[in-house]
């Protein structure tokens, strides 16, 4: 299927058909999830109502790492198989991943103030997620630093692959170091230790964030393909168009 969708025109038709449904599903799942999480989920016996930040913070953190993995895999596909849309996919996903990382850091900071008494601590988990944020920013800066966009895309692909070493460090940082951050409660050997009444809205929010990621990436990919078409028209068509946003 990936090779079928390598044709940009076919991809535009397919994504154009899928995107409205995807957006509707995202809105529905996020609406249900947010209401469930913020209103109906029970307060934690220890943290009280401020546990509800978890329903935004944890899915954002999962998406931050997953988005980087997406960028890295798309970069590998671009470098190895030269799939025409792989670079576009990676460049579309990077700002979305950076935004999720930012949300994770900010909500974590807001959660840490009442829980730990500090807006920020330099423990392994927070530091490695901050490094992830800088890796995203570096990737975006590198891709946009070249006059030739193809060169920028290839350079960014290599950088994305070099930075993937950070992902296992983020995941296992709470095991390898003495951290203030809570150890894994969901994705661990032996199953989740979180109560089901909190786990279900959490998973629903995670699903909503995943759908949001997919919708945003598809939208950005379509925009990027339109931009390429515009650039080609301006270079080869001799058509004078108003200056498109570069």
């Amino acid at each position, binding site marked *: 299927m990936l090779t079928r969708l390598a044709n940009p025109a076919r991809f535009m038709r397919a994504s154009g058909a899928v995107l409205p449904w995807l957006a509707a599903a995202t809105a529905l799942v996020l609406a249900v999830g947010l209401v469930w999480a913020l209103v109906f989920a029970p307060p934690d016996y220890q943290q009280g109502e401020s546990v509800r930040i978890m329903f935004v913070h944890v899915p954002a953190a999962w998406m931050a790492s997953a988005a980087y993995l997406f960028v890295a895999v798309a970069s590998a596909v671009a470098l190895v198989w030269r799939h025409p849309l792989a670079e576009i996919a990676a460049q579309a996903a990077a700002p979305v991943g950076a935004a999720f990382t930012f949300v994770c850091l900010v909500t974590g900071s807001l959660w840490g103030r009442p829980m730990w008494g500090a807006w920020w601590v330099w423990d392994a988990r927070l530091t490695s997620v901050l*490094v992830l944020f800088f890796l995203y920013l570096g990737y975006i800066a590198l891709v946009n*630093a*070249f006059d030739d966009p193809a060169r920028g895309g290839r350079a960014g692909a*290599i950088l994305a692959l*070099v930075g993937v070493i950070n992902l296992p460090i983020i995941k296992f940082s709470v095991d390898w170091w003495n951290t203030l951050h809570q150890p894994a409660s969901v994705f661990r050997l032996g199953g989740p230790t979180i109560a089901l009444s909190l786990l279900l809205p959490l998973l629903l929010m995670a699903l909503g964030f995943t759908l949001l990621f997919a919708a945003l990436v598809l939208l950005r990919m379509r925009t990027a393909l339109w931009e390429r078409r515009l650039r080609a028209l301006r270079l080869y068509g001799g058509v004078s168009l108003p200056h498109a946003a570069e």
Partner: protein
Amino acid sequence: MSGLWVLVRRDVVLAVRQGGEIGLVVGFFILAVVLFPFGVGPEPEMLRRIGSGIVWVAALLAAVSSLDRLFAADYADGGLDLLALSPLPLELAVLAKCAAHWLTTGLPLTVIAPFLALIVDADPAAIPVLVLGLLIGTPALSLIGAVAAALTLGARRPGVLAALLVLPLYLPPLIFGAGAAEAAATGGGVRAELLLLGAFSLIALVVAPVAAAAAVREALE
């Protein structure tokens, strides 16, 4: 192997002859260390606690500032094209350039570091560990820096961009190297940090030439 050695020798001789390339890096290192007491106050007690960290951060910044001379000159005058076409594998050529870069950047920094540690009043027990940590860690700085330098060939503002790319990847050597020096100052064990530092350098030794060579190939297309 003789090709490697010729390349290392060429880069080292170029760096030494181009008047003050080594001096620039060492000068930046000294200035960066000297800045800190002005910023945080000259109180000896506090400086002793953060002294080895100051030296490490300044070494990182000096290494970052020297990255642009890894590939830029050869890229501009076509030498990099010749290297890519030569029978020597590009990965080994990159390794040779990294070795030359370390000899003219990392090694001088490591040699000067103990004297700067005295300026910031670092604990005498920490200085040997500081130097050993720098000796083990600075090759990783040259290697990872080579990846960033290769990626930014032909970019706008390559110097700043390479610094932005490379500083997050420089965090592990900094954490373990400065952590080892801290542990030595407080009397703890340094073996774990130094071993992890060595592991990071070894990983960089394997991964960085491959990534940098791929980046150089993309730049030359």
